[in-house]
């Protein structure tokens, strides 16, 4: 089989920029770790703004990748600026898509937080929004790359799809689908609190495959049944509120929380 020669470079590469809000920046690191395909990636897009990787930043870009959730008042203005400049805005990771772990605090008052986290001290603590929020709660998001952290292959596939002018595929179904196909024995059978049956797939059910129950870091799928999740937990010897505790981890932003909060008893710690 003859090796196909590389495609001729297009005239002007689309410019991509990466921005980081409240997050661990793990998703950006995930992008940097695409070593084997980084050159192909660089042959397809020009990266003009990337805090983890380049110093010389520019503000002209076509595609903006956003990592992190919005937590400070100034984040709102900044994201609006980015939205104005970018043709395509892509939220990456659980923080940007769902609010993620930052949103665990959303049910607490600032005073409560100051007490629990900073030992009651308010001085030097930056001003925060009342809710740690996903990007799409403030500006229009064109695509979302879910996961904590994002999946490298999915990022490449999304880029390929955008460059080819097609809509990137987002699995609408449960993690259980990929988990079962993989042949992983179900964690619930071992009495472990797995919420894969309401969680969105795309991760190839990697956590259950390595012995950890799913925590829905990609959010919920297109037709979650939270009452049935409680029922599944109960039938496997797990209290129903444990399901709520699990969902609270990544899915605690108000609009995402509401449906499961209605269907399940409150978590023991909020």
């Amino acid at each position: 089989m003859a090796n196909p020669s590389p495609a001729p470079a297009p005239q002007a590469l689309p410019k991509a920029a990466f921005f980081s809000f409240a997050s661990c920046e793990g998703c950006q690191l995930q992008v940097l770790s695409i070593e084997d395909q980084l050159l192909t990636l660089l042959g397809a897009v020009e990266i003009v703004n990337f805090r983890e990787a380049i110093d010389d930043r520019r503000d002209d870009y076509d595609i903006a990748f956003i990592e992190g959730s919005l937590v400070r008042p100034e984040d709102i203005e900044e994201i609006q600026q980015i939205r104005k400049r970018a043709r395509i805005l892509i939220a990456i990771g659980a923080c940007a898509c769902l609010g993620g772990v930052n949103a665990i605090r959303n049910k607490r008052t600032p005073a409560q937080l100051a007490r629990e986290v900073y030992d009651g001290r308010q001085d030097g603590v930056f001003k925060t929004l009342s809710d740690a929020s996903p990007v799409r709660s403030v500006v229009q998001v064109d695509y979302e790359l879910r996961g904590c952290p994002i999946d490298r292959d999915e990022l490449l596939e999304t880029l390929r799809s955008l460059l080819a002018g097609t809509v990137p595929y987002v699995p609408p179904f449960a993690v259980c689908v990929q988990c079962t196909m993989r042949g992983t024995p179900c964690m619930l059978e071992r009495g472990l609190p797995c919420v894969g049956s309401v969680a969105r797939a795309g991760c190839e059910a990697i956590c259950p495959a390595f012995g950890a129950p799913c925590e829905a870091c990609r959010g919920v799928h297109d037709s979650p049944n939270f009452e049935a999740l409680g029922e599944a937990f109960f039938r496997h010897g797990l209290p129903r509120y444990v399901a709520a505790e699990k969902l609270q981890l990544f899915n605690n932003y108000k609009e995402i929380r509401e449906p499961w909060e209605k269907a399940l008893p409150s978590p023991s710690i909020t």
Partner: protein
Amino acid sequence: MTERDVYRLPRERLGALVARLERDYRVLGPAPRGDTYAWEELRPGDPVSLDYPTTMLPLRALLAPQREVLFTFRRGDDGEVAFDPPADERPLALLGVHGCDLTGLRVLRAFHDSGTRDRLVTNRLDRAFIVGLACWVPCLGEAFCRDMGSLDNEIPADLYAWDIGDVLLVKVLTNRGRDVLTEVTPMEAATAEEVVTLRRRLRVRLEAFPQHLKFAPERLPIALEAAEGDLLWDANADRCLSCGRCNLVCPTCTCFDVTDASPLDGRTGVRVRTWTGCQVTGFSRVAGGHDFRPGRAQQLRYRIFRKGKYMPERYGMVGCTGCGRCPHHCPTRISIREIFRQVGGTA
């Protein structure tokens, strides 16, 4: 059972059987995985499992795999696109296939033979060497293979074995089965005493397999039709998660999705088919976002109808083997057996 076709295979000769098959086949047998079983490759010397309950994934995972490359494509410098079929693979030898899963292979065959014959799957089925194995006790509490007529099914096995202790009694069902057995045993017929033991055990076994349905599976299409508007679909769907496990563990589910994947260069790629199922979220959604079968109750009803009505009507064989996998692996234990029982009870 014609006794002249039943031969003795002493347990200690099982290794020789594996070694013989290894020459021509990729040999697989059930092996423990977590709290369930999975088909794994056997090497000569590996123990052959004769008393496993059942595997989580059905045999179609080997014959029509979860994710399969249908062909690869590449665009040359002249713009022409060339297609390459998947590489040739070693035929499979499957050791210890239970009656329900043999039935599952018959249904798989019927599906892939119909319409445009699927050569990838039917070739694998044609070339596979299959050793059937009789069950003495139900594998799962949810099994109802006896009701569905698959407990004693021997087709399409080449050899079919009853484990009666120190010796396996093996029935020869195909010429290729005879050839292989001839190479690993002196082809001693089962003794009169052994045949009596087998008959007695088969009689006693019926008590271990209570009947769950009060009607023959042939009645299912009519019974289901009468229950189409029943509330039982909604009642069951209330606790359905649309997780799709029922589809994926089922030996007779055959649905797949077809997608293309290619690296960033956009010049090469693969066309892949991936398992899906009628209870998987998004299955009935088509272009433009339209859903032609919305709602969990209708999706659940459809799955049951497919097994009990549509498949018998189309292929002349019931689409449920009674293997019990779908209720057993359903997170909320939605049970096809219970649903069949309910619809049959009123018909």
